[in-house]
């Protein structure tokens, strides 16, 4: 579902966006990388281009989370999400809308370009915000298969990259890139493998490892171009250790919406709306 006025296109339609120059550059990039081999700098360039193309001053959506445990049992959660700023230096507020018992619980995330994000949670029952400790980020977010860290924005400068090769995901040609947290970044993951679609530089899949064990797989689907940005509107996170998965569907997604800095403060967390 898209909001009124947002421009939605399927990837197959290949409608030329106003940023046609970008698409030409994108079309040339694979040739460039092929000629230079699988160098580390190439991987970084791909990631930087992916980040550049997804950049927006702000973002707003409603998320529907469906948690499926090993037995196939489903628990639904719904949230609203607003973000101001872009990769590495952004602020975001996530507010639960359902189920009823967590309605009003809110999370403020302040992302930093050079270190892990700060996060505070507001719970109406306590009537107080609570700082979430740094190591909490590996914790599952409200019992879903997303950890707090998975909800952070990843800035290209917080990781080191290596191009591992090419591999299609759902029939779409992708670059497969290894991403290792740089020393400054505290991450629960030892490394990740990221698949970037060649046709639109959108993320197709991320596999995250703790030491040598593959622990989480995030797959992106239902791509559409919204306001010039290729966006996956369905994200599926699988926790391979727990054998459970969570599907996040993005609804009413909008980019570059007018948001104010004061909507991303601790005092704004107390607002029930």
């Amino acid at each position, binding site marked *: 579902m898209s909001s009124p006025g947002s421009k939605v296109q399927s990837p197959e339609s290949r409608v030329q966006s106003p940023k046609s120059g970008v698409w030409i550059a994108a079309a040339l990039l694979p040739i460039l990388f092929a000629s230079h081999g699988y160098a580390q700098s190439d991987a970084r360039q791909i990631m930087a281009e992916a980040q550049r193309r997804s950049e927006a001053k702000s973002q707003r959506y409603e998320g529907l989370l469906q*948690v499926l445990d090993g037995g196939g049992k489903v*628990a639904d*959660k719904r949230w609203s999400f607003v973000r101001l700023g872009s990769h590495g230096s952004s602020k975001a507020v996530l507010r639960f809308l*359902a189920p009823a*018992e967590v309605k009003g619980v809110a999370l403020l995330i302040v992302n930093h370009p050079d270190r892990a994000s700060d996060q505070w949670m507001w719970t109406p029952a306590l009537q107080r915000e609570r700082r979430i400790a740094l*190591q909490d980020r590996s914790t599952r977010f409200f*019992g879903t298969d997303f950890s707090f860290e998975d909800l952070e924005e990843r800035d290209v400068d917080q990781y080191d990259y290596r191009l591992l090769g090419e591999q299609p995901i759902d029939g779409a040609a992708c670059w497969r890139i290894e991403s290792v947290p740089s020393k400054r970044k*505290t991450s629960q993951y030892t490394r990740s493998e990221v698949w970037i679609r060649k046709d639109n530089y959108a993320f197709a899949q991320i596999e995250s490892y703790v030491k040598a064990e593959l622990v989480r797989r995030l797959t992106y689907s239902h791509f559409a171009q919204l306001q010039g940005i290729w966006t996956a509107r369905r994200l599926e996170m699988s926790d391979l250790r727990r054998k459970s998965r969570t599907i996040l569907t993005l609804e009413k997604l909008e980019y570059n919406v007018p948001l104010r800095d004061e909507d991303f403060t601790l005092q704004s967390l107390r*607002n029930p*709306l």
Partner: protein
Amino acid sequence: MIILLILLVLASSASAQDVAIRGFAEVQSAAYPETTPQDADRVAVEGRFRFEPAYKATSWLTLAGSADARIDNLELVERAWRFDIRDRGVRRPPFSLRHAAVTLRRGPVAVDLGKQFIRWGKADILNPTDRFAPRDFLEVTDDEFLAVTGARVQLERGGHSIDLAWVPLFTPSRIPLAGRRWAPVAPQILESVAIIDLGPAFPGRSQYGARWNARGSGYELSLSYFDGFNHLPHFTLQQVSEQSLALLQRSYAPLQMAGVDAAVPLRWFAIKGEAAWLKTTSAVADDLVLYVIQLERQSGELSLVGGYAGEHVAARRSALHFAPDRGLTRAFLGRVGYTFGPTSEMTFEAAVRQNLDGVWLKGQYSRALDAHWRWTLAGAAIGGEERDFIGQYRRNSHLLLTIRYSF
């Protein structure tokens, strides 16, 4: 009350994005294996309904409130059919305005007017700097916060915020009823006399407070000041010797507080600390320092909080008081929580006095049945010596079953 009525009218006509309605209906029953010398009741049942609407009138104006309706079997809830706005009675009101406030926000400034919750501090189990937060202690170990009536101005810019509070109307903590199982053990002197409760003497003047909070790279620090009254009572006793009578008066000591609280998240755990220097002009209350230091760690779905709460009495004057905050000091405090999945979790909490005169342990398992229904089973074990604040409730170990429907 007016705010709540306005909310109801506006909510019915506003668009869904501008209105939020939440609440619950629940039944909670407690079973006590032991009777106490003053109370032979073993089962307590309470039903409660909460309605909590909020309305965003404009981008800078929000109205929010909540109302409770209650009924119980042990008359901890008043039997009079009335709607209580101030919530200062000795029993829980059957219908009450829990909170109702208007919030004005413009740029970095937010102003809250009305009956509201003002919570300070960063620690999790005990908050010595949380002076605008009276509680309902009718069942001492299962307490809940009461709102205060006043105005609050918050200015937040960058990593700094200033919080100013003015509370003209005093709200006391609700203490256990005399003659019931949670009533504190009375001194021996009172056993031979009949007591006439003269009721509370509420303070007449306003309370004020200010708090500055700074968030830096890898730390958070707050300094706070409070000038008001202790929401927990002191008792003065005047014996009428000829008639074996004693007159008991509840009073609330004037209090000035200077406080500091801080949080430092580190790689393996977070350190949180809080300290309050409390000074009074009352002849029946103590000057003291309360402090808490705790370590916190999250490891996957396991959360661990452990710490120590202490007190230093600078000037001892009080003889009779009810002080759960001090009752949890000189004690080791801990909390362990485990989340099994999206629907169930388990927690254990403990407070153990350093001299082992009082021990309180609580375990709780909670499970959601669907998007609305949840049941929670809890068990509390209390032990210790009668002279200790925790230990005096050693006959009050109990099981608690709560069934809640949230909407």
